[in-house]
């Protein structure tokens, strides 16, 4: 019976039950601590399971993918396209964010008192981010490029945050594999093919746990957010309600307007099919708030349910998971202006253009830096001369918005892969209609 319910429904049920359970737990401290001690680990295990296979998956699938492309000029064309689309969608999402925040002016709705309260509350937190951002800014302009090249590939594979390095050398191995004589490369290709299939199977095993993992994640999240004083949380969130609404509207525009148009324009997949096919990955992105953890599922959905060829998905998606962050960029645009508004600063058009530029560059430059969202925001704020301490204002809803923007990021990644596949003729147009709902 249970097997017949589709995956996304099961995940949704898990989320809903987690939400209810979390709220119930809030009524009793004993139940809360029981949940944190014995239920939360299930969620953590689930995320770890997904992250565990992310690096081997990227490595194996990218090697096989590049080797199967069979043509280096095609590879570089795809690379150029991918990066180009990343830049365009990133800039677009920031612009959308800026437009909405300028129209709604959420910052003006923040009272003087709440502002000082917020700053007092989160000042210490903000300082850590600021000093981290300083470290990042003191790097040379080409440092992101240098950091993309591993100085030891085994070292690179032992850290999830050096995913870009793994991507880099996997591509290099793939290219070299293309260039060596067929007979010497055959065994290696065969080996990685096998590994690749194994990992896909492992993803399926782990996904069995998904509803339970999601349940645990959401339940513990509710408890953690509420902390000791649920009423105060409501107060905080209420004060920032307009800000949250602004961000959410921005995300909604991306999801129901920008991506559908993009997909409609460049491919023959119906957006509804795209949405249906990607549902489980989106839900996972929401519950784990980690593109890396969701990556294995994103790849599986894009390949097996939307009909993108493995060559394209294995190339585009790992890159996208580290570089392309539409949701994060939009959030940055909104937050930067929100903070300026709340502090009574006026941002002329030139400053707004500056925000678009720095946020786009920061998105690329901080690729692979863990927890980059807020750190990037500090970089952006400083670039336009807004006091970076202002990030204290927006710390309260950070967790929830992080979940939402991960969802947008992942949807953006998948859209880019569909577009690249479609323009490269690597997209099975009929496929999505039949399998999106599986």
């Amino acid at each position, binding site marked *: 019976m249970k097997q017949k319910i589709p995956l996304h429904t099961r995940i949704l049920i898990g989320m809903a039950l987690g939400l209810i359970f979390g709220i119930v737990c809030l009524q009793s401290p004993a139940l809360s601590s029981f949940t944190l001690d014995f239920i939360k680990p299930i969620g953590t295990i689930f995320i770890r399971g997904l992250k565990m296979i992310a690096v081997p998956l990227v490595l194996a699938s990218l090697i096989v993918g590049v080797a199967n492309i069979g043509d280096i000029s095609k590879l570089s064309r795809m690379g150029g396209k991918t990066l180009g689309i990343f830049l365009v969608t990133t800039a677009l999402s920031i612009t959308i964010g800026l437009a909405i925040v300028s129209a709604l002016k959420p910052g003006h709705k923040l009272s003087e008192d709440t502002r000082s309260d917020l700053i007092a509350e989160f000042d210490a937190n903000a300082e850590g981010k600021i000093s981290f951002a300083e470290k990042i800014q003191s790097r*040379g302009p080409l440092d992101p490029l240098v950091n993309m090249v591993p100085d030891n590939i085994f070292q690179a594979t032992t850290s999830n945050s050096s995913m870009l390095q793994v991507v880099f050398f996997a591509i290099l191995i793939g290219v070299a594999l293309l260039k060596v004589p067929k007979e010497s490369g055959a*065994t290696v290709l065969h080996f990685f093919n096998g590994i690749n299939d194994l990992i896909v199977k492992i993803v399926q095993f782990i996904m069995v746990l998904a509803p339970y993992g999601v349940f645990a994640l959401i339940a513990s999240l509710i408890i953690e957010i509420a902390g000791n004083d649920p009423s105060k949380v409501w107060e905080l969130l209420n004060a920032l309600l307009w800000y949250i609404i602004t961000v959410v509207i921005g995300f909604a525009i991306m999801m129901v307007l920008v991506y559908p148009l993009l997909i409609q324009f460049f491919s023959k997949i119906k957006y509804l099919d795209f949405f249906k096919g990607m549902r489980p990955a989106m839900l996972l992105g929401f519950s784990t708030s980690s593109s890396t953890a969701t990556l294995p599922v994103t790849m599986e959905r894009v390949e097996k349910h939307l009909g993108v060829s493995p060559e394209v998905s294995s190339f585009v998606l790992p890159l996208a998971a580290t570089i392309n962050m539409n949701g994060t960029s939009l959030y940055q645009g909104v937050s930067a202006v929100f903070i300026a508004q709340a502090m009574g600063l006026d941002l002329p058009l030139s400053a707004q253009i500056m925000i678009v530029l720095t946020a786009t560059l920061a998105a690329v430059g901080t690729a692979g830096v863990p927890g980059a969202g807020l750190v990037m925001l500090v970089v952006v704020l400083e670039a336009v001369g807004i006091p970076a301490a202002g990030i204290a204002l927006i710390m309260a809803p950070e967790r929830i918005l992080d979940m939402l923007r991960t969802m947008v990021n992942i949807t953006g990644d998948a859209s880019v892969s569909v577009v690249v596949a479609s323009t490269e003729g690597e997209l099975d147009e009929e496929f999505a209609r039949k399998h999106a709902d599986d």
Partner: protein
Amino acid sequence: MKKLPLHIKIVIGLLAGVVWAFLSSALGWNEFTIKWIDPFGTIFIRLLKFIAVPLVLFSIINGVSGLSDVSKLGRLGGKTLVAYMATTLLAVGVGLLFVNVIQPGGYMEEEQRIKNRLAYEIWLQDNEMGPSQDGQSFLSDPAYTKYLSEAQKGQQLSQEEKQALDEKLSSAQKQKEASPLQFVVDMVPENIILSISNNRLMLQVIFFAIFFGITIVLVPKEKSAPVIAFIQGINAIFLKMVDLVMKAAPFFVFALLAGVVAKMADSPGEVFELFLGLGSYSLTLVGGLFFVVFVLYPLILKVFVPKLTYKELFKNISPAQFLAFSTSSSAATLPVTMECVEDNMGVSKTITSFVLPIGATVNMDGTSLHQAVAVIFMAQLHMVDLTIAQQIVIVLTASLASIGAAAIPSAGLIMMIIVLQSVGLNPAWVAIIFPVDRILDMCRTVVNVTGDVTVSTLIAKSEGELGKYN
């Protein structure tokens, strides 16, 4: 342009890099060079380094598993060690010869040297080290008392120098405290994945790879066949990667050189000044290194491998030499060294894959020569007369240290501290040669790499696996 051989293109890149660095410092573009050009040099070194470990791992396994009988490995190993030891001793001998004949320390002003000497004896007294190495005492000689106060002043180091020195001293201390067999212990990995994920643990990777290769030979053929096929494939892939990277080498070398020179000083004048200050020392050392590369090694090779002409030798290995010069890292150069020795010299894969990685970590002819010249130069500078016997002690410590210090980065200076201490001289003296060390490091890496090439060729010859020059 396309038709130029690689090594010519690299030389062009190298020269262009130096010219660019001087131009940029003359025009005040140094910051641009450091921000926008130097990173490409770093990228190049990283690329080569990340290829080095898997290449060593897979090529050794590949090479050893290709042996029909394992006893050959023992013979190869013995020969390799003896040959490396012999070339190191020869190189150190050359160093001693040069430094004793040229006497670079003697070019300094007499008065300054007397002050140095007094400072040295004060240091000895302060540390209760007993009488000086040559048994004389300038302190008790009334003729020199007028210099005494200045000598004491001269002792003061700047804060920065002191800090740099302290770091080196403490790592030298650690190195010295270890048991003499520690380096053998350190050769055995605790966790093989950990070893391959750290570029400094190359010896452990070598150990594991040899072990793994031997085991492949001992396992029935039909079981090991897929593993061998996989390793051969991966090995071919990494070799291909070296090719791909080397295509861009001229550009990368340009970036490296431009960065190195730009970082060293703000203006070309300063670079020259740095050199002039230590001119006699630098010239002696460079002379010794040149002699080893262009006379000693070719001579040895001529004797054992008559068919290899002088011109061909350098044509074959110059890409590796230029790369060694620009990266000043034997490990980073290793992939290219292996390629040159295999493809151009015709040494069999079994031998290169075994001899060269070991050489890159253990054999440091240039570094040992540098030790000898530098230590004795410093002694001369302080008017400490060392007898030939004492110099030979230095030679031996230096050679042993060069094996033990295999895994230490910027090992040169740390080893020198060990050597200075072992003969009762003041380790703080290494500060004198800090300024020019970066450039001399480039030169001695060339010697290290050329030494590795020479030894691998000799061993291939003795095993009858030297292709066309056999």
